[in-house]
């Protein structure tokens, strides 16, 4: 049997959580892609950066807080979460405002490493251009 084809999948998230269903769907589809052993990364641009904000507590609204699910991404080998620096800056946010998401690097004695990578728009453009498949939420 031939080797499975592995493509580079990127999930681009540009919507804030809770106000619409896009962010939950984007997260679920990214997890599905990873379960099929594809090379999955995610990008958070514009209001998408708000998905990674720490201390989300939706208990008073009756809406499920799905932000803890981002912590599962590392276990599904989704270890690259690119966050555009300019999107953070225009929203008055910095890396310290985001959840601490990590993965265990199997090539480095399972060392725990951060999954979130803050990149400039220019850097992100190169990363996007390098993908095989891009899905937008």
């Amino acid at each position, binding site marked *: 049997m031939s080797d499975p084809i592995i493509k580079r999948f990127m999930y681009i998230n540009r*919507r*804030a*959580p*809770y*106000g*619409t269903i896009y962010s939950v769907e984007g997260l679920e589809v990214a997890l599905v892609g990873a379960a099929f052993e594809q090379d999955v990364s995610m990008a958070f641009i*514009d*209001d998408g950066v*708000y998905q990674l*904000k*720490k*201390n*989300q*507590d*939706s*208990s*008073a*609204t009756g*809406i499920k*807080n799905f*932000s803890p699910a981002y912590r599962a991404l590392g276990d599904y080998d989704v270890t690259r979460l690119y966050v555009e620096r300019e999107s953070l800056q*225009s*929203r*008055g946010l910095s890396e310290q*405002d985001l959840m601490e998401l990590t993965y265990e690097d199997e090539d480095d004695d399972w060392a725990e490493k951060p999954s979130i990578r803050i990149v400039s728009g220019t850097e992100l453009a190169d990363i996007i251009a390098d993908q095989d498949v891009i899905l937008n939420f």
Partner: protein
Amino acid sequence: MLHTVNKSPFEKNSLQTCLRLSKPGSNILLIEDAVYAATAGTSISGVVTTAIQDHGVYALGPDLASRGIDETSLLEGIEVVDYEGFVKLAAENDKVQSWL
């Protein structure tokens, strides 16, 4: 008059239109994704600060909490209300206009 806004100011111009078409002395309540407009240090903080000078500007607490926004990170002059406060504002104002 009470104006409610529920869209992110970075994605739609609902808040900007509300600010343009609301009269001084009227009240503006930020709910759902519009609560991001209440935070300090953003690219639209200036226009919101200006609005606070001649409007009552409120933000819905449970929607702030959902999005992980601490009350200490809000612009000065924004008043946080709970669902009861939302009802009170709607009852006290003669009309409610929802900028969707």
